[in-house]
């Protein structure tokens, strides 16, 4: 069981790197969907003893439905309608963003070994995975030009926050967790609508074109 959990955490970080290096949007969406599905499995793997099974099952099912299925489906629709395939010229190149990602992962491990968790023991990879995923998501949002990629970055950032939230399944009421998932879905839905309008207005999903407003 432990080795399987380790593997899931490592895969989540590997997907972060894959996203930082990938130029093909279709592959990137699939990777984010896979990451979402892996994250849905995590609460089940981390479950100790028999308590709160219902709560954890709900969380896993909600995450799988929203992160693994609904959102990727929306994103695929967006790129099909805009008929774009690749991110050609990111603001920060693919290799430099990989290097930055690597630095982030190293820092995340260093940080989490320094800061003790007040809640007792947790899986040793949990905090570093969460922090490096948050960092990769931030990098993706600020370093890519295509609106689709920025939304994917936001999703990765949210995935990182979700991993961190697994420390707290005992504290967070179900209602708040459901609210968080619902908000995430609504956010992507609204972003999807705005992307549709950007595509219609500019015949492109390049946020480079969104630069009329400045001082």
């Amino acid at each position, binding site marked *: 069981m432990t080795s399987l959990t380790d593997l899931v955490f490592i895969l989540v970080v590997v997907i972060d790197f894959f996203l930082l290096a990938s130029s093909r949007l279709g592959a990137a969406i699939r990777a984010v969907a896979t990451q979402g599905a892996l994250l849905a499995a995590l609460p089940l793997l981390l479950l100790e003893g028999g308590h709160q099974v219902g709560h954890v099952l709900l969380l896993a099912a909600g995450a799988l439905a929203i992160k693994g299925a609904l959102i990727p489906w929306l994103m695929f629709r967006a790129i099909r309608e805009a008929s774009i395939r690749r991110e050609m010229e990111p603001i920060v190149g693919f290799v430099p963003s990989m290097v930055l990602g690597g630095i982030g992962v190293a820092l995340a491990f260093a940080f989490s070994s320094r800061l003790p968790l*007040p809640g007792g023991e947790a899986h040793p990879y949990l905090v570093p995975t969460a922090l490096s995923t948050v960092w990769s998501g931030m990098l993706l949002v600020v370093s890519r030009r295509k609106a689709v990629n920025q939304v994917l970055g*936001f999703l990765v950032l*949210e995935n990182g926050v979700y991993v961190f939230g697994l*420390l*707290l399944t005992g504290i967070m009421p179900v209602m708040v967790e459901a609210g968080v998932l619902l908000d995430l879905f609504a956010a992507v839905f609204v972003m999807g609508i705005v992307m549709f309008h950007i595509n219609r207005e500019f015949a492109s999903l390049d946020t480079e074109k969104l630069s*009329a*407003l400045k001082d």
Partner: protein
Amino acid sequence: MVLLIAAPLALALVAFAMPSARRRPLVLLAGALVHAAGVLALLAAPPPAREGAWLAFDPLARVTLLTATALFLASAVYAQGYLARRADRDNRVFVGGLLVLLSAMTTVALSHHLGLTWVAMEASTLSTAPLIYFNQNARSLEAAWKYLLIGSLGIALALLGTFFLALAGAGPGGPKSLLVEDLLAAGGALSRPWVRAAFVFLLVGYGTKMGLAPLHSWKPDAYGEAPGILGALLAGGLTNFAFVSVVRVFQVTIAAGEGAFARDALMALGLLSIGLAAVFVVGQRDFKRMLAYSSVEHMGILAIGVSLGGAATAGAFFHTMNNGLTKGVLFLSAGNIHRAFGSKSTDEVHGAGRRLPLSGPLFLAGFLAITGSPPFGPFFSEFAIVNGAFGAGRYWVGGLFLAFLAVIFVGMAATVLDVVQGDPSDAPRVPGTGDSWLTAGPPLALMLVVLALGVFLPAGLKDLFGAAAALVGGGW
């Protein structure tokens, strides 16, 4: 209290389902009236605080909800005139979105559960992003996208901060809860490094929603392109509630013994915001963007006031009311001027005072009020904050504060006088857009309230500001 949140939400559904675009704005008015009646009823007979309840009508909620409900009522009346003139646009999303925003803002004000606060804050971002796109052109689209993306990033970091705070209380003897009361009671039992990290992330997250520099970059774009009514509700309403969330987290941070650190962080962001606003206000030709920088400035003033403690903090809560209502005057009258001239640049807009005999002078009076001229309310709240700074021996803070305010006064004066004075005969004209009671009456009413707050502050209100300040170690 639940009704206060549920009623606007239910009316939003009515607005979405309603077939008639002409009658739909009336739903907005109904929502505003129900909300105002609800807030007044709660003020008259405050519900007793219950142990472990997620919602509470505390002084913080009283101050901000009173401001917001007045502002929303004025905006709803204004919307009757505004939306009738914009019959070319579908107002379904606009009316529904505003009501969802009202519900989300009310939730933030009443919520004592930091998880619920987060959910409502995110809902407020999502409900307003489509409204910025009301004019459906390339510029408003750009503004909406930036607002959505930057706001979502900020709010994601706030979620991480919320988790940090929950973790800080997860140790043995910790409250294992996100209820403000539980966290306050735990106080020193919270893990201090995690509280510190949580405060940083929550300040960045909700600070983005407040529009504190350097997290303000969405603000000029969003306020510049959104309809005036939305600008009024964002700058005068939503930013106040983001401030409330920051204050609640600040409250917990103080209880955990990290108050000094939090005060320094608030002071740094506050001074940076005022300084940055001073730089960008000077020479600003777009009068709606100018108002956005003014909003950045006033968020900075609130942060400084809370950071200083003592009477300055009570002044800051007084200022949330003054700033909220005055921003309503400014954005609504600026919206009228924008409509009448079809432009928001001082290159083309002149003589608004003559063409719009109410909105023009109101814009000027609003400018005088917001820059802290007596006898309007903001003068007295800003005075309390400056006085608090000097009284506490923070001469540098007080001096910088006054210097930046002076620069902002001069910078805004140049733009505002350009708009109001002069001969409008050569300026572009949009037919059928003169002042009417529905569009100029609401800002006039708000202006009178701002004036009244300056001339005579009722003792009950003054005590309320003091009670709100007492939550974070301040008071008259």
